[in-house]
């Protein structure tokens, strides 16, 4: 079974979530738990780093949809960074760039949050 795990780094108000491995219907709950944890702790400024993510399925994309509303209601956002071309293509096909800000680097995403303070 393909592996997937997440880790979270706190950077002031901003939480950077690192994804690694295969994010599909079986591992989506793992990311759900991570997001739930952040939301419970009132961390709504979330940067997701896709550097080590090799695959994302539709169920994986659904996790972002599940939380974005709640996060934005609380003056936060989920910003996506550092996607491989393949992963970006999956997001792009569905039109995610119309709904989410996607950056090339983590720093850009963090900076964006800081500018809008």
């Amino acid at each position: 079974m393909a592996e997937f795990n997440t880790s979270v780094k706190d950077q002031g108000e901003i939480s950077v979530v690192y994804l690694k491995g295969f994010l599909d219907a079986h591992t989506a709950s793992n990311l759900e738990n991570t997001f739930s944890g952040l939301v419970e702790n009132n961390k709504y400024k979330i940067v997701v780093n896709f550097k080590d993510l090799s695959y994302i399925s539709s169920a994986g994309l659904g996790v972002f949809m599940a939380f974005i509303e709640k996060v934005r209601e609380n003056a936060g956002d989920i910003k996506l960074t550092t996607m491989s071309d393949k992963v970006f293509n999956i997001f792009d096909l569905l039109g995610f760039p119309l709904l989410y800000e996607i950056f090339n680097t983590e720093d850009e995403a963090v900076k964006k949050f800081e500018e809008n303070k």
Partner: protein
Amino acid sequence: MELNLLKFFKNIKLKTFLGLAGVLFLYKIVLEPTRSVPFQVIGDLLVLLTIASLVIYFIEYLSNETLNPLSLVMNLGIINVILFCLITFSGSVFNLFFDNVTENVQNPSIMLSTVMFAYSFLVLASLAYIFLVFKELYFLKQKRNASVYFNTMIVFIILASLTYFIKDYPDYTFIKNTFLIISILLIVINSLKISWIAFLVKKEKISLLILSVVISILFVVNLIINSSTGLHDKILMQFSPALNQFSNIIMIYGAIYFSILFFTTLFHLPTAEAFDRKAQEVSSLQYFSKLITQVLDFDDLAETITDIATKVCNAQASWIFLKDGNDLKTLANKNIGLLDANLINHFIYRREKYSGRSSTFIIKLNKFGEIEKLSEKYSTLAVAPLIAHKELKGYLVSAKKGDFIFDDEDKNALDTFSDYASVAIENSRLLEESIEKERLEKELDVAREIQRKILPAQNPVFDRLSISSVFIPAFEVGGDYYDFFEISGNKFGFIIADVSGKGISAAFVMAEIKGIFESLTRTYENPKEILVKANQILKGTLDRKTFISAVFGLIDMKKGSLKISRAGHCPVLLLRNGFAENIRPTGLGLGLNFGARFSETLEEIEIKLQENDSIVLYTDGITEAKNIKMEDFGDRLFEETLLQAINDPPDVIANKVIAQVTDFTKDNSQHDDITLVILKWK
């Protein structure tokens, strides 16, 4: 206090005994009967009745606890030592307080006769107790009903005791001798029936061996000093000849019984260890079979395990805790509160996380920092790791309070038992898993059945359009959907869609969108319009993390044109003049946005169809099909395969693509539905 007194007098056995003792006292001291035969016999009978009532009274105390033969034997030893002291020192003690005791025994003062009565009574009580212990030992672990032998023996002992006074009449001594000899014979026969030794463990047998030597010697010594003519003998004879004889017989019984016991134990010793092992195996097997029958219900199983655990090591409390991710889960806590158990669990787990111990170990709680927080004062734990498939699953913990400790035997018993418990727990878990798996498979069967019924049974046939479709479901239903709609005015609509997620929930969404598009295509015909309406309808039913990617197309047969809108789905490929063109108008997936943005961003494009144009619709099950190295089939290989077959009829093109995909993924399982629809314009 009053209550105790009340209990005391309510006890009918005690009352009988006290009554008899009182009568005896009056009879001996106050009446001071002459030494004529009838009076003596009545006195003897009274004495024997008192013994009998005392034995019956003692039984109650002995049977309150489970009988351990070794402690019974120890009791005998102690009473014997007391008797020995009584007999040996009686002469000097009496002489200290009274003058010329030896002469005055026959004709004592009130004071002396009271003291003599008390002395005799003490001897009587000791003998009664010894006799009772013999009785208990005799019946211990006796299989057949052997009471006949014992009762016969009692009768002859009584007869031998009662006839003892005859020794003063030399002509008739044969009567008492006969009774005595028969009694001794019966004693020997009864002493041979020792069946409880086999049930002792080796250690107990060794201590029994030593005890039996000491006690048989004590009995012999007591027999000798009892029957030798001294003050003791005189006092007893004055009190009751029957008691004197009774004590002799008891001493003989003891000497015989313990000599035989010594040899029996000696012969049992070499096989003791084997017997121990067998006994342990038998009891373990009993536990195991108990566990096996409960594997079906995990909670019941856990309860049984802790229940047996407390029994095998005589612990006051027992519970199981299992590792559950990062949590420790307490199960089946017996005689201990959940809070206490949880506190101790964390203590154990912190200590043992990296120890890798596989056998039972003892932990003293005096080093436990939070011991004050426990509501019960547990002092020692025996912790048995539960290991299955070489992996630590949790611990079976037993706890004792106060000064109780776990000894090696407890440890060994827990070790053996926890092995069985681990296996049973693991089996139960596996069973639960396979039941769950079966349930999931059933669910997926249902999902596949729904999907099969939703998808078109056959492809429509037109003059200018030939249509081919292939659908290969994944084991876990992937949520692919395609459909064709005949729209009035010689128009033809088609859709391909992929519901996010898998399984039965995806299948239900498919069923829902089929209904939506069936009805929308009756009223609307423009792809963008239809997709926007569909998105609006879905707003009320889709949960937030579910969305659908779709392409809706409309072919006008008369005009030879194709209108197309794409809601987040894979692009449509147009094969024309040896090239594959990606048709990719912008558009969000259905359900990603329910506001204005969905319709604002959704494009609709129109293409004029040329002869031999092929329109290829597909889901990511093709491009993301993976080989064993987890590489994707990919867009490029897909397009190459299509172009190689560009001049073939759509059926052939589709088959070639599927063959290529199958070849690429040959050793890997299909993880998503594969859908391929090809429309060829003629």
